[in-house]
């Protein structure tokens, strides 16, 4: 490793703050975006900084004059919207494709830098404690080509969808998006402590008539799980079980979420 190369890399990394504050000039911004494409840690850092900056921004909120509202709604009603763009899906993102010239907006592209979305899943999980729904929607996007993705999409876009969140005893946060009408829900959990290899987390529907196993939660990244066939009075539960699962819970639930 050449010293210069290493130093450049360390130096470009330091731009994360200025980048998140939108304070880089054109060449620096392009350089940093190229760097981001290959630096997962930087992407995480920029994400965190962007959320922090948003807090700074939102804290300045002032009430706009009420008459602006109607005007904005009217303008929107006659403004054509963009269809979902290319490059949003993880497989199509192009790393290192940041244009060298544009310092600022690329019309229609929104404010996101064009770093590769691959590897962003970890960042999503980091954010899942803030917004469980974020992880769900992202995973949904990944899995929508699969058959199960359709059911999942149906729940997520159901008109009566509601979101519930709960803390898991011992660590972790569970998010449920549920459609009463479909009697189905999508469950995701982030931040569960790792278990010994022989154990796993099992998901349950626990109702007045007993407990129905809903499968083992995948280890690692919180993939959302589809649960159908909800009955009145059901709660969602999670227990620690032997790796292959149990027919009935054998330990005290770490999570018991009423669904009303």
């Amino acid at each position: 490793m050449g010293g210069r190369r290493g130093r450049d890399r360390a130096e470009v990394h330091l731009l994360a703050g200025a980048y998140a504050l939108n304070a880089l000039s054109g060449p620096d911004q392009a350089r940093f975006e190229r760097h981001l494409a290959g630096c997962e840690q930087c992407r995480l850092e920029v994400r965190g900084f962007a959320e922090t900056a948003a807090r700074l921004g939102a804290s300045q909120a002032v009430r706009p004059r009420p008459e602006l509202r109607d005007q904005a709604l009217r303008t929107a009603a006659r403004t054509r919207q963009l269809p979902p763009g290319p490059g949003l899906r993880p497989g199509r993102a192009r790393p290192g494709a940041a244009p060298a010239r544009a310092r600022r907006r690329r019309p229609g592209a929104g404010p996101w830098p064009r770093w590769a979305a691959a590897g962003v899943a970890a960042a999503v999980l980091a954010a899942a404690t803030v917004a469980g729904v974020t992880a769900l929607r992202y995973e949904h996007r990944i899995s929508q080509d699969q058959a199960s993705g359709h059911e999942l999409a149906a729940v997520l876009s159901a008109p009566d969808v509601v979101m519930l969140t709960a803390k898991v005893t011992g660590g972790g946060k569970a998010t449920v998006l549920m459609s009463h009408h479909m009697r189905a829900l999508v469950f995701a959990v982030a931040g569960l402590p790792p278990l010994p290899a022989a154990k796993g987390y099992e998901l349950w529907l626990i109702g007045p008539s007993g407990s129905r196993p809903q499968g083992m939660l995948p280890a690692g990244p919180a993939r959302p799980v589809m649960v159908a066939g909800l009955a009145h009075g059901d709660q969602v539960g999670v227990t620690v079980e032997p790796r292959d699962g149990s027919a009935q819970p054998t330990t005290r639930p770490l999570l018991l979420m009423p669904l009303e």
Partner: protein
Amino acid sequence: MAGSEQARWPGPAGGAGADPELALLLSRIARGDQRAYEQFYDRAAGPVLGLVLSVLRDLAQSEEVMQEVLLEAWRTASRYDPARGSAMSWLMMLAHRRAVDRVRSEQRAAEREQRATSAQVDYDDVTEAVESALDRERVRRCLDALTDLQRESVTLAYYGGYSYSEVARLLGVPPGTVKTRMRDGLIRLRDCLGAQ
């Protein structure tokens, strides 16, 4: 047993990032849902106007930019990618970029140098508070916990709309120093805001 809570509509006081409903609204807006846009507007207009105003310092211009930003959110809602950040951070990025574009295209350097002094001290100078008083107080406390150079680097860039080389000139320190202070400052702010 862990309690569960029905998702509520947290105001800005709940923390800008902690607003998953804003993301849900955006996904409805992407499908052309005007009701969703109304709700989105009601929650987003205040923060957008506040940020833009802190950069532009001119109410009429800021209102104009606010409307542009919200219209852009309507237009490009389908491009919002929740995998890359909260809806509020997406929106604030849109707003900040618009405001900075405007200030850089319209203001001559000399005028901007003049404004620097006020931008520096006025980060808490808002004309009319909404329900985010609590959040503002938190942010203020966290800003106060930074070193002077960190705070000025962050606020001049974000609230003032200056590039880091401009910030360096304004503060009379090397650009490299400003870069690191911005990052250090954001790390401390992130930890401070996250911890509350």
